[in-house]
């Protein structure tokens, strides 16, 4: 037993590090249902519609961090459903991709980000802490919207040869998670944009904004249109959405500076 404490001292930091890595299934946003119960009648336990949040926050490190597939190491009690929800998570450029059926959208969803404010590009550049890139291929955006106190800047191109195109920009390399996407991983392809990594997501999927507190804003849930390209530079992460082909999207991304 002589070196017991030494061994304990050695294993403690390992256990702490392990704790940070263990996957925990996504948490639901409970704010609304708790409030409802407190406002209302002595309320019975009620199940919340399954709006899932990314539960485990990873270190805010910029990297193409890809957690594909999860090792099941211990005995499991999870139902097959539960397992499906948590079995695939992939984080990239401030966006969390989950291979899961996705939450049921609440009927009251406004499909907008919190605190949207429309302004000029110049004003937007003063309001956010990251550089706003504009793709030369599309030119000046028809509309610029800054949301959630400068956390996201969106460039809206209402009329392009490809229909409506939307670009969200955010400090995805600093903030852990800003968006959640519920996708089928078969629709996701790694691509290269300007020498850095990007992901091409084919087809519409459910998109949800995640607040600074790490809770998904249920009111923001919406189905994306067309296809999506996500990529990042050292200063900013970008999400391009529209009815574009991969090659067009990549050339637009390449022209962003």
């Amino acid at each position, binding site marked *: 037993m*002589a070196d017991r404490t030494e061994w304990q001292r050695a294993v403690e930091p390992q*256990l*702490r590090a*392990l704790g940070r890595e263990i*996957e925990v299934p996504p948490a639901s946003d409970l704010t609304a249902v708790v409030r409802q119960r407190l406002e209302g009648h002595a309320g019975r*336990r009620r199940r*919340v519609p399954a709006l899932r949040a990314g539960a485990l926050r990873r270190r805010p490190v910029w990297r193409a*961090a890809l957690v594909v597939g999860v090792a099941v190491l211990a005995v499991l009690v999870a139902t097959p459903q*539960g397992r499906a929800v948590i079995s695939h998570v992939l984080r990239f450029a401030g966006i969390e991709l989950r291979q899961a059926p996705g939450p049921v959208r609440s009927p009251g969803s406004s499909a907008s980000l919190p605190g949207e404010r429309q302004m000029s590009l110049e004003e937007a550049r003063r309001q956010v802490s990251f550089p706003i890139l504009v793709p030369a291929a599309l030119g000046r955006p028809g509309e610029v919207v800054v949301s959630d106190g400068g956390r996201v800047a969106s460039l809206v191109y209402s009329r392009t040869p490809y229909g409506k195109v939307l670009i969200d920009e955010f400090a995805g390399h600093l903030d852990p998670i800003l968006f959640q996407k519920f996708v089928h991983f078969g629709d996701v392809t790694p691509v290269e944009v300007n020498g850095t990594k990007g992901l091409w997501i084919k087809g519409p999927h459910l998109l949800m904004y995640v607040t600074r507190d790490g809770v998904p804003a249920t009111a923001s849930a919406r189905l994306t249109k067309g296809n999506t390209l996500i990529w990042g530079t050292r200063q900013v992460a970008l999400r391009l959405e529209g009815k574009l082909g991969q090659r067009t999207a990549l050339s637009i991304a390449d022209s962003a500076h």
Partner: protein
Amino acid sequence: MRRAIDDAEAVDRAVGGDLDAYGVLVARYTLRAHRAAFLLGAGEDSDDVVQEAFVKAFRHLSRFRVGEPFGPWLLRIVTNETKNLTRSRRRRAALALRLPSAESSGTAAAGPADELLAAEQRAQLVAAVSALPHTERQVLVCRYFLDLSEAETAQVLEWPLGSVKSRTSRALNRLRGQLVPREQNQVLDG
């Protein structure tokens, strides 16, 4: 606006019936509470446990001492709710711990062999923790996975501080017993 308010002020206002202020606490602590519930054994019922805990916490806010940290106080309620749940299930769920299996950082850091080795060691450690008896697992979860101090762990599990210390020590010993035989060139004691 929401961000400016700290826990103490939020609690203070919530005691006065301000549900917006309480909503700030709910938003702020949902992930932590959910993580605790899951790791302490609530499994797929973690959302329900946390929901119940927040409702109860609000009703018991008057018992909350001014200046006390909100986190451990809430986690104690979460732990109790988890206990109620496992009691009603009449069995304890095995703790299902998972590690992400593949993680690639765009730049090649350590060699693949090192990474594999490290991954295997972590997997062994996770398996060993999962296999611990219930109380010993609880204490390790609190101390290391939730990163609580001994005093906070005592509060959350409602144990005397001495029990936290002795059970931590016992749990670590048992872990070692499971891990050591696999290590090479290790001088075994006793």
